């Protein structure tokens, strides 16, 4: 009788154990997952915003006294601002803003431009001014070291441009000066470093 009771207890305990294991298996919670992909593309956008007009007039001033040279020191007062948004895939990559003149610059002078250092409401790796540069029909760096960033939109955001005519230094060049009114286009491009 005692032996039977022991067997019964063992059977019950075994059943309890099996049942517990089964219950544990059944009591699993169902879970599913869903993958979210976020792809951020490369972007290069550049815009010019004028404080008043996108037409800039840069003039030489006639001398007041006989024997003096023509004064080319006048700079434009109304600024044009460069806004840009740039997204690069690698932090080591860089972009720059280049300028190219379309048209003929008068003989005897050069057309210079200087981008200011960045100011405004932008964020990120903003570009640096390349200083005073002489524009020509060949691309010239105006703003360099641009990473992933945005300048903010409109005037007072980005870099403003200051233009100035400069007389070429040699007497031969001065001899080439003539009274004229010439219009040229300056094209700005946001481009990758090669």
């Amino acid at each position, binding site marked *: 009788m005692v032996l039977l009771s022991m067997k019964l207890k063992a059977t019950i305990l075994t*059943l309890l154990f099996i049942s517990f294991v089964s219950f544990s298996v059944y009591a699993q*919670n169902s879970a599913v997952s869903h993958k*979210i*992909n976020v792809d*951020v*593309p490369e972007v290069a*956008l550049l815009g010019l915003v004028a404080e008043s007009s996108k037409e800039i007039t840069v003039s030489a001033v006639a001398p007041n006294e006989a024997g003096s040279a023509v004064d080319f020191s006048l700079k434009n007062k109304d600024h044009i601002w460069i806004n840009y948004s740039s997204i690069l895939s690698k932090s080591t990559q860089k972009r720059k803003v280049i300028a190219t003149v379309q048209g003929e610059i008068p003989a005897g002078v050069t057309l210079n431009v200087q981008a200011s250092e960045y100011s405004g409401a932008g964020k990120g790796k903003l570009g640096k001014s390349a200083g005073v540069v002489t524009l020509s029909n060949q691309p010239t760096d105006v703003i360099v070291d641009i990473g992933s960033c945005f300048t903010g939109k409109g005037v007072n955001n980005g870099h403003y441009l200051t233009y100035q005519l400069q007389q070429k230094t040699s007497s031969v060049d001065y001899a080439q000066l003539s009274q004229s009114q010439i219009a040229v286009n300056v094209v700005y491009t946001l481009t990758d470093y090669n």
Partner: protein
Amino acid sequence: MRATFIILFLLSSIQFTFGQQLQLEISGSANFDNAMFTVKEAGLDFASVLENESSVLLTLFQSDDITKKNNPNSKWRIAIYKQDDWSDDLLLEVKRAGSGKNIGNNGKTNIHGGENYQVIRKTEGLFFEGMGEIRDIPLNLKLSGFSVTMGAGSHNSRIVFTVYEGW
């Protein structure tokens, strides 16, 4: 021996009661691709919020026919969390955009909660609750915190939905 069979029967009954097999299924896709990440004008950042509407559908059903028959209106709750290595600035939010449809009848679904956007965190949190089998519960996802300054590239996250019995 009779006692043994009685115990066995009782334990089996308990198993049938507690051994409900609520299952979840998910369909659709929610990708935030290049087309959504547009900079409208030079100098601007991305739009502050990107929303992906009702492209993910959640279905909840009983895989066990006996439970389905004996307890068709079992209560359940769904919890949610995400797995990724995103910075804390990037927020992924989810909301329930509809109530889905009952499986097997055309009555109104019994489902509540989760109708407002909530941030999906790396630790599990309650999303919404309901009763019975419901299919095609639409979900909206919202993304915020992305910026031009983060650079181009792919960012992946995995959202995990878990169903628990009871409220």
